[in-house]
C-alpha cells in the first residue's frame, strides 16, 4: 500500500535498501545531503552529487534528466548520519525553465527492493524556487522514516546548502552544477576521483564502498563499524508494535485539505480538553476521598491510642497516590498520542494555520480563495505546556479582535513596563493583520489604520512601507472622524441593500473587499460621536464585512465608565504576552493563550507583505 504523503507528513520505512524515484517534467539534478543528529551537513564530503555520486549507503545519478532512480541503503549509512535529504535542482544556464513554478510538479517516491512504492509525494505549490528539498529520510529511535518536505529555495542550491550548514555553499553549488552539466562520458572517471579525494581527508566521511549499491544488503561488510552499533530494529520499531495507527495530517472529515486540517485541529483541541478534564476529575476525586478518609481516622477514638491510626492514614495516602498515578498514566498516554499527532499536523498546516516559523511561509503565494480560518495564536494547558494547539478562528471574523495592551490583569503582563507592553501589543496586532492580509486573495481584504497620536508609527512601518494599506494611516481627531464616517456609511449602505434584498443596487464604485480597521491608542482622538460610531461598527460591522482590531488598554477609556462594557465584551480579547483567559467550549478549562511569535530577526513578515502588495490587482497592471 502506497502512502500518499502531504507536506510534513512522515511514514515508516523498512530496514532494507530503498530506491528513490524522481519524475519531473523537465531535466533536474538530483542529489542528496547527509545530515548529523542536528540536521547539519558537516562538509562537502557529506553531499552525494553528480561530481561525487557514491557515498556509503547512497549513490545518486549523474546527469540532469527528467527521470531519476537511485539507491539508498539506510543500513549502510554511517551511524553519524541521521538524515538524508533528497534535493532537486533546476540546472541553470540552459534554455530550460528557471523556476519550479514553470514546470510540472515533480513527483518523488520511495520504493522497496521489489520496486513497490512505499511512499510518494508530489511537490506542489512551488513558484520561483530553483532548488528544493523533496524528501528527507531520517533516523528515529533506530528505525528510518521518510518525511515529505517540499521546501523550496529561491536562492537556489547555494541557499539550500547554506541553510543546511555547509561551509562555502556557493563553491560547492558551482561544483555540483558544473559536474551535472558535463556530458556523462567525460564525467565517468572524474566523479570517482573526486569522491575519493574528499573522503580521504578523514573528517568522518567514512570509506568509499566499491560494491554495487543495490547489492549491498547481502554484504554489509564494507563498513563494519556501523552495523553492530545500529540498534536492533526490534527495539526501535515502536510504530508497528503500537496498537494505534500512526497519526496522519488531515485525518478528519472535510471537503478539502484545508477543512480537514481545521477539523483535525479542533478535534485535537477537544480531545486535549476532555483528557485533561478526566485527569483533573480523577485527581480531585482522589484528594476529596483522601480528606474524607483522614477525617474518619481523626474521628475514630480508637485510632488515637493505637498505631492503627497511622496505618489507616498511610493506607489512605497510598490509595490516593495509586489513583493519581493511574490517572497520570492515562493522561500521559493520551498526551503522547496528541503530541505525536501535533508533530505531524503542525508542519502540514497551510499558511493560514501555520506558525510564523513554518517553512510554508517561505513558499507563500497569494491564494485564490480565503481559507476557513486563521491562526491567532497557540493554546496550551499546564498539564503539558509544550503541547500547543493552534487557536483557529473562523473567517470571516464574527467578532472584532482586541489586543489588550493593559497590564492590570495578567501576571506575565504585570512584569513588563507599560511602554514595552504597548509595543508588544502593536507588534502582535501587526502580525495578526499581516496574516489576515496574506490569507485573503489579492484585493479582497483592505486595511485601514487609525493612529491618532502617531505613537504607533514604528510598529506600523511594515504595513506602511510595503504598501499593503488601503489608505495612509489616519492621524488626529479629523482622521479618526473621516475614516469612521466612511466605514459607517459603508455598513449602512450594505445593510440597506441586504435588507432590501437588492445587493446589486449598490453603487458601482463600491469596493467589495472586506475591511479591517485597526484602532490604536483608543480613545485618544475620539469624541463621543466617534465612540458611538466605533460601537456601531463593532456590532453591525461583521455582517457587512467591516471588522475591528483594537489595540487598547481598557484603563485608558475608564472615563467613559460602563458605557463601553458591551464594546469590550463583544470583542475577542487577545494578549501580547501569554495569559490564561480563554476557555474552551466543552469543559471550560482556562487555557493559556500565546500570541504568534515571529522568529527573531526574521524578515518573513515583510517578505510576505511585499508579496501581498505585489499581487494586488492594481499593482499587477
Amino acid at each position: 500500500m502506497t502512502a500518499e504523503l502531504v507536506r510534513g507528513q512522515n511514514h515508516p520505512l523498512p530496514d532494507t535498501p530503498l530506491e528513490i524515484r524522481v519524475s519531473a517534467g523537465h531535466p533536474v539534478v538530483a542529489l542528496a545531503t547527509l545530515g548529523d543528529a542536528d540536521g547539519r551537513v558537516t562538509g562537502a564530503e557529506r553531499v552525494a552529487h553528480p561530481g561525487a555520486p557514491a557515498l556509503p549507503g547512497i549513490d545518486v545519478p549523474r546527469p540532469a534528466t527528467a527521470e531519476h532512480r537511485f539507491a539508498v541503503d539506510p543500513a549502510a549509512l554511517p551511524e553519524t548520519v541521521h538524515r538524508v535529504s533528497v534535493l532537486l535542482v533546476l540546472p541553470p544556464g540552459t534554455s530550460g525553465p528557471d523556476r519550479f513554478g514553470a514546470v510540472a510538479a515533480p513527483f518523488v517516491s520511495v520504493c522497496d527492493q521489489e520496486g513497490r512504492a512505499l511512499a510518494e509525494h508530489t511537490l506542489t505549490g512551488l513558484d520561483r524556487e530553483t532548488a528544493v528539498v523533496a524528501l528527507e529520510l531520517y533516523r528515529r529511535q533506530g528505525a528510518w522514516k521518510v518525511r515529505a518536505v517540499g521546501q523550496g529555495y529561491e536562492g537556489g542550491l547555494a541557499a539550500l546548502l547554506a541553510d543546511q550548514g555547509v561551509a562555502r555553499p556557493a563553491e560547492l553549488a558551482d561544483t555540483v552544477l558544473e559536474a551535472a552539466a558535463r556530458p556523462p562520458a567525460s564525467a565517468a572517471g572524474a566523479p570517482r576521483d573526486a569522491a575519493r579525494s574528499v573522503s580521504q581527508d578523514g573528517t568522518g566521511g567514512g570509506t568509499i564502498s566499491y560494491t554495487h549499491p543495490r547489492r549491498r544488503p547481502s554484504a554489509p561488510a564494507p563498513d563494519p563499524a556501523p552495523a553492530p552499533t545500529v540498534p536492533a530494529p526490534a527495539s526501535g520499531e515502536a510504530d508497528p508494535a503500537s496498537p494505534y495507527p500512526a497519526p496522519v495530517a488531515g485525518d478528519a472529515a472535510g471537503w478539502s485539505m484545508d477543512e480537514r486540517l481545521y477539523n483535525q485541529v479542533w478535534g485535537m483541541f477537544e480531545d486535549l480538553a476532555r483528557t485533561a478534564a478526566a485527569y483533573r476529575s480523577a485527581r480531585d476525586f482522589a484528594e476529596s476521598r483522601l480528606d474524607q478518609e483522614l477525617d474518619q481516622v481523626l474521628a475514630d477514638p480508637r485510632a488515637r491510642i493505637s498505631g492503627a491510626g497511622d496505618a489507616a492514614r498511610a493506607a489512605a495516602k497510598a490509595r490516593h497516590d495509586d489513583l493519581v498515578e493511574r490517572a497520570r498514566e492515562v493522561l500521559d498516554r493520551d498526551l503522547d498520542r496528541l503530541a505525536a499527532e501535533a508533530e505531524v499536523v503542525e508542519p502540514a498546516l497551510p499558511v493560514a494555520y501555520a506558525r510564523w516559523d513554518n517553512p510554508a511561509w517561505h513558499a507563500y503565494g497569494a491564494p485564490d480563495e480565503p481559507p476557513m480560518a486563521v491562526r491567532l495564536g497557540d493554546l496550551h494547558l499546564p498539564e503539558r505546556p509544550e503541547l500547543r494547539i493552534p487557536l483557529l478562528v473562523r473567517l470571516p471574523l464574527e467578532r472584532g479582535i482586541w489586543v489588550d495592551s493593559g497590564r492590570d490583569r495578567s501576571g506575565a503582563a504585570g512584569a513588563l513596563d507599560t511602554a514595552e507592553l504597548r509595543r508588544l501589543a502593536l507588534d502582535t496586532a501587526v502580525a495578526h493583520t499581516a496574516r489576515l492580509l496574506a490569507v485573503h486573495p489579492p484585493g479582497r481584504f483592505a486595511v485601514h489604520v487609525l493612529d491618532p497620536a502617531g505613537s504607533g508609527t514604528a510598529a506600523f512601518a511594515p504595513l506602511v512601507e510595503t504598501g499593503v494599506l488601503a489608505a495612509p494611516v489616519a492621524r488626529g481627531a479629523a482622521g479618526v472622524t473621516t475614516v469612521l464616517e466612511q466605514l459607517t456609511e459603508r455598513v449602512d449602505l450594505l445593510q440597506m441593500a441586504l435588507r432590501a434584498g437588492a445587493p446589486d443596487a449598490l453603487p458601482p464604485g463600491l469596493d467589495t473587499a472586506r475591511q479591517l480597521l485597526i484602532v490604536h491608542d483608543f480613545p485618544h482622538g475620539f469624541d463621543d460621536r466617534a465612540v458611538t460610531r466605533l460601537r456601531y461598527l463593532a456590532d453591525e460591522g461583521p455582517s457587512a464585512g467591516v471588522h475591528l482590531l483594537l489595540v487598547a488598554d481598557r484603563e485608558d477609556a475608564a472615563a467613559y465608565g460602563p458605557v463601553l462594557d458591551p464594546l469590550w465584551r463583544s470583542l475577542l480579547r487577545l494578549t501580547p504576552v501569554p495569559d490564561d483567559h480563554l476557555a474552551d467550549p466543552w469543559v471550560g478549562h482556562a487555557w493559556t493563550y500565546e500570541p504568534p511569535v515571529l522568529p527573531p530577526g526574521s524578515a518573513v513578515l515583510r517578505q510576505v507583505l511585499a508579496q501581498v502588495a505585489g499581487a494586488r490587482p492594481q499593482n499587477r497592471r
Partner: protein
Amino acid sequence: MTVNMTKGQAISLEKQGGGSLDQVRMGLGWQAAPRRGLFGSRTREIDLDASAVLFAGKQPVDVVFFRHLVSDDGSVRHTGDNLVGGVGQGGDDEAILVDLQRVPVHIDQIVFTVNSFTGQTFQEVQNAFCRLVDETNGQELARYTLDGGGQYTAQIMAKVHRAGTGWQMTALGNPANGRTFQDLMPAILPHL
C-alpha cells in the same frame, strides 16, 4: 450472539477471543401502545429519555443526558434526544456511546436510566428495551426487555461497572418515578 438478560443478571464484557471491548453502545427503543377508537390516529407522543450517570465511589461525578450530551472527559456520548420513539421498530431510538478506554480511572460505575419526560407511565409504552451493542462491529451483546405495564415513569435499566481489569454489565430493571435523572438519584444509590 445476544444474551437475553433477566433482572439482576450480570455479564462480563470481555470478548470471546480475549481482549476487552473498547466501544459499547447502550441503545434504547420504545413504541407508544396503540390506542383504539375514534381519533386513534392522533399522535400521542411519548418522550422517553435515556441518561447515564458516572459514579466514582458512590459519588455522582458527571451525567450525560439530553441537555449535556457529552461527559466532560469525552468517554460517554449521547447521540441526541428523541422525542417520540418508535421510529425504526427494533432500532435504537436513543443511544449512549461509551468509550471504555477513555473512562477516567476513578469512575467505577456507569448507571443507565430511562425516564418518561412527558409523564406517561410505562403502561402506555410497549416494546421497550435496552440493549448493549459492541460499537466496533455492531454485534448485540445483551438485551434487556422492560416489563410493560407498570405504574411508574422511570426505570433504572442497567449498570456497567469495573470488575477486575475489565468491565461488567448488570441488568437492574428497577422501577422508579421521576421526570429526569435528578429525581432518580435516591433510587439509584441502593444499586451502587
